[in-house]
């Protein structure tokens, strides 16, 4: 499982009961199921990979098989309270496009991603090998990831794009990292809004 419980709990803490949410790259729908249980959210998952879409249907999740690279055309502005993308941003080519789409159809966006600048990843590179870890579980030749970025990179992009970082948390193997997150954290989570 790519999803960690701490990821779920943080996301749930940012969501009000009964909200309308959209979960991009919803996998088997377990996050939506969790948010349905603890926050009574209504909403949809988006999953383009056939087996995961099927798993979501099996789990009774409302899932829409759409290609996120095409954006969210057809979904109205502000249709959702929160648009979530948990550990999928690094697997999408159109990074700026999808962030803009998330903040178009949602009042806020919630994004989590693996931090490529995590110290274990840096150590791996220093030793001459691409990192393989809990947050980056694939080998270089079979990874679904197409964008390789760090916490510092992401925050710089947000500043450039006029995306407001409303809240951010960083983790190392489930524990919150306060000091030097770009070095010490393997995963980062953000609650984002529109600045302009």
């Amino acid at each position, binding site marked *: 499982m790519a999803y960690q419980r701490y990821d779920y709990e943080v996301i749930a803490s940012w969501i009000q009961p009964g909200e*309308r949410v959209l979960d991009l790259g919803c996998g088997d729908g377990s996050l939506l199921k969790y948010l349905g249980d603890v926050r009574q959210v*209504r909403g*949809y998952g988006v999953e383009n990979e*056939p087996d995961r*879409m*099927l798993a*979501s*249907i*099996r789990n*009774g*999740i*409302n*899932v*829409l*098989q*759409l290609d996120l690279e095409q954006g969210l055309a*057809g*979904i*109205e502005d502000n*249709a959702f309270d929160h648009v979530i993308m948990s550990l999928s941003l690094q697997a999408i080519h159109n990074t700026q496009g999808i962030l803009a789409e998330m903040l178009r159809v949602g009042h806020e966006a919630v994004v989590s991603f693996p931090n490529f600048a995590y110290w274990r990843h840096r150590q791996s590179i220093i030793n001459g090998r691409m990192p393989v870890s809990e947050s980056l579980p694939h080998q270089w030749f079979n990874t679904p990831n197409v964008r390789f970025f760090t916490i510092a990179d992401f925050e710089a992009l947000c500043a450039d794009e006029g995306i407001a970082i409303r809240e951010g948390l960083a983790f190392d193997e489930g524990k919150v990292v306060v000091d030097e997150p770009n070095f010490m954290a393997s995963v980062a989570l953000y609650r984002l809004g529109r600045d302009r």
Partner: protein
Amino acid sequence: MNTAASVGVVSPSRARFDAPLALRCGRTLPGFELVYETYGQLNADRSNAVLVCHALSGSHHLAGTYADQPDNPGWWDNLIGPGKPLDTNRFFVIGVNNLGGCYGSSGPQSVNPATGKPWGADFPFVTVEDWVDSQARLADHLGIERFAAVVGGSLGGMQAMNWAIQYPDRIAHAVVIASAPRLTAQNIAFNEVARQAILKDPDFHGGHYYEHGVVPARGLSQARMVGHITYLSDDSMDEKFGRRLRHGKPIYSYDVEFEVESYLRYQGEKFPGYFDANTYLLTTKALDYYDPAAGHGGDLTKALSVASADFLVVSFSTDWRFSPGRSKEIVNALVHSDKRVSYAEIDCHAGHDSFLLDDPLYHGVLRAYFDNIAG
């Protein structure tokens, strides 16, 4: 793992409805009959009924075979049966021949009580809405207050969608496959070519050909050929026939040369043997008229806002008759009206006809969805 089997030998039933049915065209049918088939058992609380609506040339014969026609399985036999995705061990499945049809329900071939002769072209125009009304009468007749699901592909999907609009309290799930919220000008244009072929056939006799002992076979054949072109994808036609020549080389003749000609002629020529031209005309018009958003200023979201059913919408990547984009219009309208909906876009090469095939992902999606309905 389920072992899937056939429902076996089946036989149709007939229900007579004596109360008049007011139709959208403004006319009223004094009474009517519907021919239907059922598979599986209605459970004690009558909560496991699934209505399957047919498309342009379909019928009530969904699954199994007739005792005297062992080689003629129902048109959705790969989906419906014990252990199949629509599992008749769990669901009571109903197929009905639509009003205006040619498989035994009241239609152009039945006798007009006012004249004592077949209705022919005088049979009133029927719409998707009228079909749904008539199917609701059948549900009453069978003691079904609320369907667990209404399912259909293509024109059948339009009926499933309209069930959710017309009778929101009587349908728990709508399964809308390879369908569209309304036809495009191009869709209507293909239907018009088909209709003109029938209407211009000298054997049509203004729709009263039964009295002349003929059928407009040439026109109906041509209509079917046009239809078949739109059911397949460019790729699947290329794969099936390519440019293969029957004689291996050009013979400079209008006889069958290319294999695709052979296929179309075969499909065209056998069609009048089992389908009625007046029914074809009526059904293509029902397709053309279908537009649930029309009464809501073109706003499909508003049209669907009354629905309380859960929806499953399925499209096929190579379907250009009702492309995935058309299904997404339905999905977007459902999302905007805050309905429960799942959407699967199946990568299948066979074009519009894909909905009749047993692609593993497609059937997997339907199986998973129906499993959840059965609980």
